[in-house]
């Protein structure tokens, strides 16, 4: 990835220029989500969509058929960490502290969507669990949407969890760009993925 103005060379996975005039400069990350159209449409009916000519057709819900190849990863200035999809599939709400921030990693099975949110609301840190098909916090019993991070029932109804800029990557790519700086100790199996094809 190059910028036209300085021709510096940028890395997607580092969010940083790794060559050229701007070498070492980091881009500000915005929280984003990879989900299916059905889920996004429902959550953002007032939003917009960038429609270009279709160049592929395979990126659908079943693209993640081999969840061991994918991770949800996050990086900061000094630390990076990832959670494999194979772990998220089993634990739909993981309460963690990342970079001194209490966070929850959620996984929505129907849409195969992984997200990370801060789990502090109104100065209160919440503990999340997934029970009877719903994401709820133990402190207030409120029910939360695992993709939007909004409370849909309970005393915190209407509140939003603040999303963190975690994103989905191939595990192999993440480990190359953020080596030995994280990973989940509960899943150390390293899948061998086929080489990525460059679809020119």
């Amino acid at each position, binding site marked *: 990835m190059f910028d036209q103005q300085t021709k510096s060379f940028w890395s997607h996975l580092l969010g940083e220029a790794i060559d050229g005039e701007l070498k070492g400069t980091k881009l500000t990350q*915005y929280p984003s989500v990879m989900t299916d*159209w059905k889920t996004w449409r429902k959550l953002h009916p007032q939003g*917009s969509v*960038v429609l270009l000519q279709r160049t592929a057709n395979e990126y659908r819900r079943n693209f993640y058929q081999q969840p061991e190849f994918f991770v949800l990863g996050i990086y900061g200035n000094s630390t990076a960490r990832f959670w494999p999809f194979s772990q998220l599939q089993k634990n739909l709400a993981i309460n963690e502290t990342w970079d001194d921030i209490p966070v929850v990693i959620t996984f929505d099975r129907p849409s195969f969507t992984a997200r990370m949110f801060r789990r502090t609301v109104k100065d209160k840190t919440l503990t999340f669990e997934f029970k009877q098909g719903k994401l709820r916090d133990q402190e207030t019993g409120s029910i939360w949407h695992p993709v939007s991070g909004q409370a849909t029932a309970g005393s915190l109804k209407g509140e939003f969890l603040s999303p963190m800029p975690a994103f989905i990557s191939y595990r192999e790519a993440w480990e190359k760009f953020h080596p030995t700086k994280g990973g989940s100790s509960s899943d150390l199996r390293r899948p061998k993925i086929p080489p990525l094809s460059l679809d020119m």
Partner: protein
Amino acid sequence: MKRIHWEIGILLICVSAYGLTRLLREEPPDADLFKPLRKMANPFQPITKFEATDVGDIGDQLNPDETVLGVTVNGQSRAYPINMLSGPTREIINDDLGGIAIAATW
């Protein structure tokens, strides 16, 4: 025979030492690694002009199970269908959303 054992031993030590240095390497790949790719892929015109369609007007242009990259900036939400961002000439969309200049990349 003893000499063969000795040589195999040295070889194993070398292989292990190489493996260990690989494991302990903490630096991500540097720019040099991408040089062959940079020669192979020609620069393309940046994508800066395109239309954004309201969610309500999409109809059946997208399938319910298609993957989208979604982002909300200053209250404005926008989706980028991954099946339209695939391929080296498509992977960066230079956009403005919620008053902020962003690059949606895949």
